């Protein structure tokens, strides 16, 4: 028999509990405290009151509002596009036999590469310099469109590159999860549909989609959460001074407040982080409510 009570168990847990306690549980409590401490001074570790002033400062800061706007645009475009595209590619992948394994592996490659490093390549592809218009401009030139500086140019162009790169970065994960979901759909359903002579589109909407709907919703939810936390992609494309580039994200604002050219304000950073957390929590709850109605388990 296994022993009923072996207190040594706690000894084995101790290292994990120490690390989690110091770097996760304590900070989690502390971040709320910070966010209510007004006029916190990093050097003297003192503050002059408790209240909502940090929140009202952050919510009125034009840089924060810019970051919120950017983040929402990014979320609204990249989540549906990447999920839809990943679904299309995964369905395509599962319908072929030759080179399927090769492509599957290939598509996953961006997942393991350094976001900052590959982002630099994207920057060069899209950047317009005195020496060259860049490859992206060469391609849109074929369609008669004029050269645009996607990195230092107009807002919509910068936003386009950011969305484009974000989709490129998140695709591997989505394709991988969707192809494994598609592979696990019971063959019997398809055989039955074949016997009934059901058309392909109908098979897709009536069998495939309902069967993988939990996976799709899982991807949408994690996609929302991930896109709300966007940061390194933007740094890779536009550099560390995201406020100057008008391309900051909410997470970027948190880090800039904490440490950066305008840094040294953990209370403002905490308030912004908690606002972000509340936004993500709300969106996730809405997503879960919608999925309850539409997902077939």
């Amino acid at each position, binding site marked *: 028999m296994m022993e009923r009570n072996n207190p040594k168990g706690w000894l084995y847990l101790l290292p994990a509990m120490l690390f989690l306690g110091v770097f996760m549980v304590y900070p989690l409590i502390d971040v709320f405290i910070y966010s209510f401490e007004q006029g916190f001074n990093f050097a003297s570790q003192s503050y002059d009151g408790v209240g909502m002033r940090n929140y009202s400062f952050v919510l009125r800061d034009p840089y924060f509002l810019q970051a919120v706007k950017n983040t929402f645009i990014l979320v609204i475009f990249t989540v549906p596009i990447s999920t839809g595209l990943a679904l299309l590619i995964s369905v395509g992948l599962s319908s072929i036999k030759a080179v399927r394994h090769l492509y599957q592996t290939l598509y996953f490659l961006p997942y393991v590469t350094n976001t900052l490093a590959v982002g630099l390549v994207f920057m060069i592809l899209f950047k317009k310099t005195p020496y060259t218009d860049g490859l992206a401009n060469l391609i849109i030139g074929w369609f008669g469109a004029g050269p645009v500086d996607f990195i230092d140019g107009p807002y919509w162009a910068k936003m386009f590159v950011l969305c484009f790169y974000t989709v490129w970065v998140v695709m591997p994960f989505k394709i991988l999860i969707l192809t494994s979901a598609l592979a696990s759909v019971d063959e019997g359903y398809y055989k039955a549909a074949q016997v009934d002579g059901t058309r392909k589109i109908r098979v897709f909407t009536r069998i495939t989609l309902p069967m993988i709907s939990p996976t799709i919703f899982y991807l949408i939810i994690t996609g929302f959460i991930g896109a709300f936390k966007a940061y390194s992609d933007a740094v890779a494309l536009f550099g*560390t001074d995201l406020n100057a580039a008008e391309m900051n994200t909410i997470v970027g604002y948190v880090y800039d407040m904490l440490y950066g050219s305008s840094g040294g304000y953990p209370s403002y950073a905490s308030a912004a982080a908690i606002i972000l957390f509340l936004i993500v929590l709300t969106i996730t709850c809405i997503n879960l409510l919608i999925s309850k109605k539409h997902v077939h388990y």
Partner: protein
Amino acid sequence: MANTIDYRKMERAAAIRRGIGKTITYLLLTLWAVMVLFPFYWMILSSVKSYSAYNAEYVPKLYTWDPTFQNYLDAFTTVPLARYFLNTLIYTVSTTALMLVVTVLAAFAFARLNFKGKNGAFVLFLSLMMIPNELVIITNFVTITNLNMRNTFLGLILPSVASIFYIYLLKENFAQVPDELYYAAKVDNTKDLKYLRKVLIPICRPTLITITILKVIECWNSYVWPRLITDNQAYFLVSNGIQYIRERGFGRENIPAMMAAVVSISVPLIILFLIFHKKIMEGVARGGTKG
């Protein structure tokens, strides 16, 4: 007969339709493969073009007849790229090693030992999995700063050690090992730690390897925490190094040298991926997320 001819026609039409469908599918899939590979091709290509050749191309060329390795020399001599590599290696190896020890011990306690409060502790661990990094990083930054551990390896490593998801993954795997082996060991009066070392770890090696690789990738690519905690170049990791190179390194125009640096820091992970792609993809499919 009229009917058979009709069938033949229908079959032929269906075959043609299938053929067209297949062709379109292959075309689209190949298009995406090109989209995925192109940035990698472009970084390698640009890294072997000479500085003058690159800047002379107003219309970028998709090939070069005159590859040079000068840029790689520049990348390793003008900026301390080797230093960044060494730092990242130290950081990755120490963090992963510490993580493995902590994870194995905790997973063992959860999977094999019975003690008061175990279930409560496990639920607490699981609920911590939902906590986003952004919330805790602020206090961690203050903690590490107050401990005077900015620009040290300890400051880099310590907050990255504990990974609840890996504890969970390994605990599930440990729990699959038949209980009989544990009782047999108990009867033989084997110590828990010995049983863990001689039985559990060898049996669960595939999962341990998966966890290790995923953590290595995470460490190699980490950017946010190292950026907060280091402002001294002597402690930069590759991600920060690349960002530094981009903003101040070779002068903004020396893109070939920049690309040589980018290729150099991407190669180790690409090699790792080529060797372990099956394990990596399995591990991620079992519940990994990015970011």
